[in-house]
């Protein structure tokens, strides 16, 4: 019995031991599993695939997911993660996309706004299309930080970056790069169009070209590159009209177009000098022939088959792409929001244009996707931003409705992106880390705020005697610098008129802080006279929000508006309005340049992330970590997988 008991006991011990060992193994496994998740993510993936969807908004995304309209985004959320993505101040595409690319705050990458100033003479500039000098036709990057694609390129990782905003001129990567927002039209501008019409007109003469039909023939001109006298170079065109169609003739080539339809790509070669030509492409839309002729000619863009300035790296990539998918829009922002805003085109025409742009963008997308087998591919879609600017339905200030109302064309856009994602999810292998994100979300733009007018009314800016209230005073036309302590330009900035920094500065370094504090206090207290609502969420001292070598170039104060408010266009370009806050009556009714807390973007990944509250800064380090590259110390963000 004793021996039996002993045996039993021993068996029991053995059993206990086995269980103990099993438990131990399980615990060890768990420990290894959890502590090693980072390593597993890293070792699991050998490719990073980024789909940027400019301005994809979390409110709209959540609503459409809940309504079952975005099944593939839901699927991605379930496999991996979905969260808001905190954006940056100011929440503008060039600033935000550059912050994503560098993983650093603007103080380190040097891009603070669409609009820049030359402190010496208070002249304004466009940051994303930066000429090397005033009359130069060479451009330079506005970005001073190091984007992740430069780091992956240095590490010899195949790198493809398509249509990333604020990347003109393109960087030399170990692969290809196609610059996005910032690529100019043939004149060096961000957009532009012409209306050819036989109607009586008294509208914008700059953009309206009066034509007359003689014997069914119109002789007119198109306008190309600007000479140093700032006058465009012209080229004759002929249009033969018939009842419901027309034929546009340029360089003996015929381009037919029907009433209510688009022409094919029209190629125009401008002679810019002796034996030199600049090749451009554009498309026309024919509104009517009878009783009056009316035609829209879209932006005159750099010809990808004969680019006068490279917008891709290597330069021949633009040709390669044209060979693969046909001619395509090269302009940074080809969606002609200005033409729609100025009622030169109808919604139908604008949406038709957007559809064509999306169609060619999809072709580019699949062209790159189908040959993506190593390294990094980042592809940005941005028509959604333009659509939301023009068709944003939510209101925050007036006529506020219960729940979020989303325009049908905006919904369609999100659904189309969901369809695209569905195909992607079916096609990518399990070695591909997928990240989909936006640079910011959206909100309404109901009231426009002129900070320059506010500065005048609060005694920080003084106007000259020749001030005329019927003139918007753009480019600081009426500012008396000798009596001005602060001025505003761009969509969020205020600069102190500091002695020795500004051309006609009057503020001593010692009094600067006090003036800044005074402005911030008053701005944060400022209320909209129309509804007594707070206008500004926060006004920030630059040192509070930026750090790094280029903080010196940023505005001294950066404004974060409440939803519904945005800087007025007049004030953004150094002008004034008669009242500080005015109604925005334009078609451009959505915007995002408000306090970043109101307009986060979205982040979807096909892997679990370690942070429920990620920001734009965290993308670059995550990309580098997945690709097993050491994250530079200078990066402000943190990897989402470590």
């Amino acid at each position: 019995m004793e021996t039996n008991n002993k045996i039993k006991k021993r068996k029991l011990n053995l059993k206990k031991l086995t269980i103990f060992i099993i438990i131990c193994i399980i615990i060890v496994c768990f420990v290894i599993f959890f502590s090693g998740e980072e390593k597993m993510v890293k070792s699991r993936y050998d490719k990073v695939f980024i789909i940027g969807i400019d301005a994809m908004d979390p409110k709209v995304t959540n609503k459409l997911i809940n309504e079952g309209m975005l099944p593939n985004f839901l699927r991605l959320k379930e496999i991996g993660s979905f969260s808001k993505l905190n954006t940056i101040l100011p929440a503008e595409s060039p600033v935000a996309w550059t912050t994503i690319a560098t993983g650093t705050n603007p103080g380190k990458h040097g891009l603070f706004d669409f609009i820049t100033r030359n402190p010496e003479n208070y002249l304004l500039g466009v940051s994303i299309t930066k000429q090397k000098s005033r009359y130069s036709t060479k451009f330079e990057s506005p970005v001073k930080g190091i984007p992740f694609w430069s780091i992956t390129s240095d590490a010899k990782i195949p790198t493809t970056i398509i249509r990333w905003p604020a990347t003109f001129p393109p960087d030399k990567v170990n692969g290809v790069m196609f610059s996005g927002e910032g690529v100019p039209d043939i004149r060096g501008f961000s957009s532009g169009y012409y209306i050819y019409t036989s109607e009586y007109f008294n509208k914008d003469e700059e953009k309206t070209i009066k034509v007359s039909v003689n014997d069914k023939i119109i002789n007119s001109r198109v306008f190309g590159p600007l000479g140093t006298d700032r006058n465009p170079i012209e080229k004759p065109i002929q249009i033969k009209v018939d009842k419901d169609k027309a034929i546009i003739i340029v360089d003996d080539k015929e381009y037919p177009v029907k009433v209510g339809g688009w022409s094919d790509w029209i190629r125009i070669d401008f002679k810019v000098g002796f034996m030199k030509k600049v090749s451009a492409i554009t498309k026309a839309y024919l509104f009517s022939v009878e009783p009056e002729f009316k035609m829209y000619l879209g932006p005159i863009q750099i010809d990808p088959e004969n680019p006068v300035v490279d917008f891709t790296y290597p330069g021949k990539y633009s040709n390669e792409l044209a060979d693969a998918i046909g001619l395509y829009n090269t302009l940074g922002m080809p969606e002609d929001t200005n033409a729609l805003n100025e009622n030169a085109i109808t919604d139908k025409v604008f949406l038709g244009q957007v559809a064509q742009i999306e169609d060619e963008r999809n072709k580019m997308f699949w062209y790159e996707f189908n040959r993506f087998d190593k390294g990094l591919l980042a592809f940005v879609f941005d028509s959604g931003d333009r659509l939301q600017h023009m068709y944003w339905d939510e209101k925050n200030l007036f006529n506020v409705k219960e729940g979020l109302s989303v325009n049908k064309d905006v919904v369609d856009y999100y659904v189309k992106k969901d369809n695209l994602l569905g195909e992607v999810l079916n096609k990518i292998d399990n070695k591909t880390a997928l990240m989909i994100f936006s640079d910011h979300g959206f909100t309404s733009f109901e009231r426009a705020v002129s900070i320059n007018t506010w500065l005048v009314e609060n005694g920080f800016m003084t106007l000259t005697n020749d001030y005329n209230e019927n003139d918007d005073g753009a480019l600081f036309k009426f500012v008396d610098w000798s009596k001005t302590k602060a001025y505003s330009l761009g969509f969020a900035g205020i600069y102190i008129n500091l002695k020795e920094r500004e051309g006609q500065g009057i503020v001593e370094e010692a009094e600067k802080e006090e003036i800044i504090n005074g402005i911030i206090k008053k701005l944060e207290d400022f209320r909209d006279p129309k509804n007594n609502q707070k206008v500004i969420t926060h006004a920030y001292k630059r040192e509070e929000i930026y750090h790094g070598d280029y903080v010196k170039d940023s505005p001294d104060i950066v404004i974060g508006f409440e939803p519904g408010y945005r800087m007025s266009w007049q004030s953004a370009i150094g002008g004034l309005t008669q009242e500080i806050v005015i109604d925005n009556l334009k078609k451009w009714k959505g915007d995002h340049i408000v306090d970043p807390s109101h307009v986060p973007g979205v982040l979807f990944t096909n892997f679990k992330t370690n942070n429920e509250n990620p920001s734009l800064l965290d993308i670059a380090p995550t990309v580098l970590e997945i690709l097993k590259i050491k994250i530079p110390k200078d990066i402000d963000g943190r990897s989402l997988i470590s």
Partner: protein
Amino acid sequence: MDYLDKLESRTIFIIREAYHEFKNIAMLWSIGKDSTSLLWMVRKAFFGKIPFPIMHIDTSYKIPEIYSFRDKYAKEWGLNLIISRNEEAIKNGVSPDKGRFECCNALKTEALKQAIKKYKFKALLLGIRRDEHGIRAKERYFSPRNQDFLWDYKNQPPELWDQFKSGSDDNSHIRVHPLLHWTELDIWKYVQRENIPITNLYFAKNGKRYRSLGCLPCCSLIESNASNVKEVVEELKTTRIAERSGRAQDKERAYMMQKLRSLGYM
């Protein structure tokens, strides 16, 4: 050294460098004040005996005085003068009323192309300046890509398209711009000092004069009472700068507004 001496010695240096570098070169002479001044300095550079041809692109539409001036001084200075015409286009009746661009292209561009091909020139000396509109920052004396000629028919400085990647049909020759650093006023002062013969088209008759010369149909007269070199210098000194800067400012403003507006964020 006097200011004009400095300008001159820089130009002569470039002329000699160009000849030394390329040997098979030619100078384009439009018979205007700039290229005639350039020719003057080319003669100085080689002590009166120019070792390469001087080429005149003859569109057949030049102002009659230009032809007589050309022939007179070609003889007097012993120039090896090449006259290039696009005979075929002239025969086919290409003319400015059928379009300035077409006309310039056929009669200037094509004629020059034909000549370059025929004589296999490796480089051409051109009398272009970059003084107006303050664009000196980007000056380049030797430009393999600069194909501009707009100065000849419009009184404006050359475009900066040479900064762009070349879209040119013919890259086989180099353009050399020895006068790049001269201003319109400098040229006139130099003409005055050196007593360079200049066609009298530049001097006022009945209150009007040519400010730049090209083809008769495409050249317009400006209001002026300056009837000799001295008076032209005086006129440029007193009126030009103030008048131009005002206009340039308005244009700059309009340009800036257009550029900013094109952003779309209105």
